[in-house]
């Protein structure tokens, strides 16, 4: 490892950059992978490194810097040889991450968000890392360490202080468990690698089967998979290198979701087989997995699975000896941007750009990766498609409900005895799920993540299904001891962090929403602020460019309706009160003029308390 302050363009720097660039054929569309690999080699992306990459990939310097600046996991400033990121989802908070992080910072003589003076280490927070069932979790140089405890914090601090290379840290730190608690058709499949491929008939037959099965997308939107594939198959490739592509969406950034991680670690063959089948149907020769940066540690095991499949002729030229059926898969890494789960932002990122959602139409099925017809599907959708190809549509349709056939894999976290992965046929009630995972005294469930739906006990009879509660799989449980206002406030902060900044309603609206929630939290809120929050939520929903902004206010809206007292108990103000302390706003002038007479103060009783206690003297002087 190199020291954090060297940026001088030494021989090793040139060598590393040139090596990475030539490995990627100096291809500008591979910029994401180039930046990541260079950063892994050199520690950070200094100005001279960015220039060298821009030159090598024949890109404008500003493009390269723009991409490097967009992603949370790329750094254009040195952030220490050890970069520690604490996952800061509400479930991590509930498991006590704040105290643990404070402990770590104290032991390292460090303020969160800063780099130590010797350039050794930085400590900061990051959005949900997908370890919600085994948190609190951290990433050290983008490798997850789960189940943090005070003892584990002390050990990590010691290892950092002694500058032990990450490769020599105790293996048990990095243990990520699957925690599969309930298996159904998908997780208990008995298919050997290649079984589904061997069952393939003509592409048209497979397409008909997928359509007949009623399979709908598991990534959130629930679009018919058969229809998506048909549109894509019928769309012609264009330009000088016409092609079709399959993309597996493994960005899994929705707070509280981790089922794709488990599918990729326990059923990778089935997922890859689903991609191969999708390629067979739509006529693609290439599949790309977009794997979130937080799952960097899965890259090597997944590449091993791919190698095995190539060796078994399940990938590559003439798959299973069938002339003309060529298909291979490559894994691309994301770099810490939730928005890249949105399929068009994902495609931008795959092409080496900032993850800003595209305008639609055209939809990816006609103009996706590199402008070619592309089927983007969630990990779980693809695995289910493989299952259907092997076992038939008729069998699959016996599972689930009329409009939601098959099963759904849920990621369950929060207040329950057995967090983990649970697979159910569609139609299961929330109450059933809660009983199975050992949840007690539950006051709320947040289903489908921060952008999803918050439901109260009166609704626990509702069902997980497209016709009632659709979900990508996130299922967070909050018992009676939790403060639902804080849950919503945590999500409001999440969206500020993850807004891509492209459109004003979302870029500004998410921040205004956060400010409103923080103001109420600080005890300065009144009915005025609640009204203001409703207005902002409306604007976010109706004026944002993509799903992120449109759903960013959902949780605040739901909790305002269903857990209103958690807000009201914090409202201190009849009319209106500033979010800041007016009298303190004169502090600097008092200092430089030496004045402290009554004229140098506002005589406004300003509440200092954060609770409902305190005196209110009105905001008039």
């Amino acid at each position, binding site marked *: 490892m190199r020291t954090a302050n060297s940026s001088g363009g030494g021989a090793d720097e040139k060598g590393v950059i040139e090596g990475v660039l030539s490995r990627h054929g100096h291809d500008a569309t591979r910029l994401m992978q180039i930046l990541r690999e260079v950063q892994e080699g050199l520690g950070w992306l200094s100005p001279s490194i960015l220039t060298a990459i821009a030159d090598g990939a024949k890109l404008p310097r500003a493009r390269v810097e723009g991409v490097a600046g967009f992603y949370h996991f790329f750094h254009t400033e040195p952030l220490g040889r050890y970069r520690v990121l604490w996952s800061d989802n509400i479930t991590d908070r509930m498991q006590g991450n704040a105290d643990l992080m404070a402990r770590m910072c104290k032991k390292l003589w460090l303020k969160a968000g800063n780099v130590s003076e010797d350039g050794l280490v930085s400590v900061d927070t990051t959005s949900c890392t997908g370890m919600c069932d085994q948190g609190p979790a951290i990433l050290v140089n983008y490798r997850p360490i789960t189940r943090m405890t005070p003892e584990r914090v002390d050990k990590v601090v010691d290892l950092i202080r002694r500058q032990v290379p990450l490769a020599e840290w105790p293996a048990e730190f990095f243990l990520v468990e699957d925690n599969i608690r309930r298996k159904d058709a998908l997780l208990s499949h008995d298919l050997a690698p290649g079984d589904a491929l061997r069952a393939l008939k003509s592409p048209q037959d497979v397409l008909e089967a997928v359509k007949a099965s009623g399979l709908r997308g598991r990534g959130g939107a629930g679009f018919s998979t058969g229809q998506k594939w048909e549109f894509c198959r019928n769309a012609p490739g264009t330009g000088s290198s016409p092609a079709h592509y399959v993309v597996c969406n493994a960005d899994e950034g929705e707070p509280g979701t981790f089922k794709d991680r488990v599918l990729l670690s326990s059923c990778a063959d089935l997922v890859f087989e689903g991609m191969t089948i999708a390629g067979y149907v739509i006529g693609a020769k290439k599949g790309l997995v977009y794997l979130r940066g937080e799952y960097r540690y899965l890259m090597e095991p997944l590449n091993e699975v791919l190698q095995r499949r190539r060796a078994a002729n399940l990938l590559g030229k003439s798959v299973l000896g069938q002339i003309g059926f060529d298909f291979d898969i490559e894994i691309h890494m994301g770099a810490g941007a939730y928005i890249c789960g949105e399929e068009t932002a994902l495609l931008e990122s795959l092409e080496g750009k900032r993850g800003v959602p595209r305008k639609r139409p055209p939809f990816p099925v006609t103009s996706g990766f590199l402008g070619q017809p592309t089927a983007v599907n969630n990990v779980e959708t693809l695995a289910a498609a493989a299952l259907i190809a092997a076992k038939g549509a008729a069998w699959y349709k016996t599972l689930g409900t009329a409009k939601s056939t098959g099963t759904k894999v849920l990621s369950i976290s929060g207040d329950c005895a057995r967090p983990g992965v649970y697979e159910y046929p569609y139609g299961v009630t929330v109450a059933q799920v809660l009983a199975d995972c050992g949840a007690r005294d539950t006051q709320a469930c947040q289903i489908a993540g921060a952008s999803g739906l918050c439901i109260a006990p009166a609704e626990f009879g509702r069902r997980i299904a497209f016709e009632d509660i659709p979900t990508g799989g996130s299922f967070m449980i909050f018992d009676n001891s939790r403060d639902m206002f804080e849950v919503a406030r945590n999500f409001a902060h999440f969206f500020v962090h993850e807004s891509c900044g492209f459109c004003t309603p979302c870029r500004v609206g998410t921040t205004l929403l956060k400010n409103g929630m923080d103001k109420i939290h600080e005890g300065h809120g009144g009915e*005025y602020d609640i009204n203001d929050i409703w207005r902002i939520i409306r604007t976010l929903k109706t004026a944002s460019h993509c799903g992120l902004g449109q759903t960013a206010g959902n949780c605040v809206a739901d909790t305002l309706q269903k857990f209103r007292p958690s807000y009201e108990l914090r409202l201190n103000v009849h*009319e*209106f009160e*500033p*979010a*800041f302390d*007016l009298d*303190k*706003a*004169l*502090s*600097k*002038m*008092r*200092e*430089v*003029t*030496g*004045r402290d*007479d009554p*004229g*140098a103060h*506002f005589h406004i009783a300003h509440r200092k308390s954060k609770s409902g206690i305190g005196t209110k003297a009105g*905001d*008039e*002087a």
Partner: protein
Amino acid sequence: MNASTSAPKRKLKVATTSLAGCFGCHMSFLDIDERILDLIELIEFDRSPLTDIKHCSTDCDIGIIEGGVCNAENVHVLHEFRKNCKILIAIGACSINGGLPAQRNSLDIRDILAAVYAQPGRGVHIPNDPEIPLLLNEVHPLHEVVKIDYFLPGCPPSGDAIWKFLTDLLAGRTPSLGHGLIHFD
């Protein structure tokens, strides 16, 4: 606006002021030209640079404020308006966003004063006469200090925009500017 209604209604009291602004918004207000004669049938001006009345009556209906809040005096005036006006309107970019005066927010006010009042060879003498209002650490838009009911954007908003806004308001309609007055494409 057609001011010839039969029974004379009570005239609404309107107060206006400029805080940390340039008076451009007030000048633009005067760009409603002769329509001010129609307006004056419906309203009477209370505290305002136009009347030189120094304090708001306790029963003002509408307060119109240009400029943001940059010093203690601004805070007191703003509180007086809020206390005495049923409806408060923030007019112009400065009142809504802080505008040009808020450019100083990226600097520390102590550094600014030290630079401005440094006299070669004689050190720094920052005026501290009690008559001179103390500056706030930062310039704030109005709505961060009191509740504001309506926002009329522009730098300055045009006379036509101000006219449309006020006539809507006086007729009991939620003001709506729309094409040509607030956006142009």
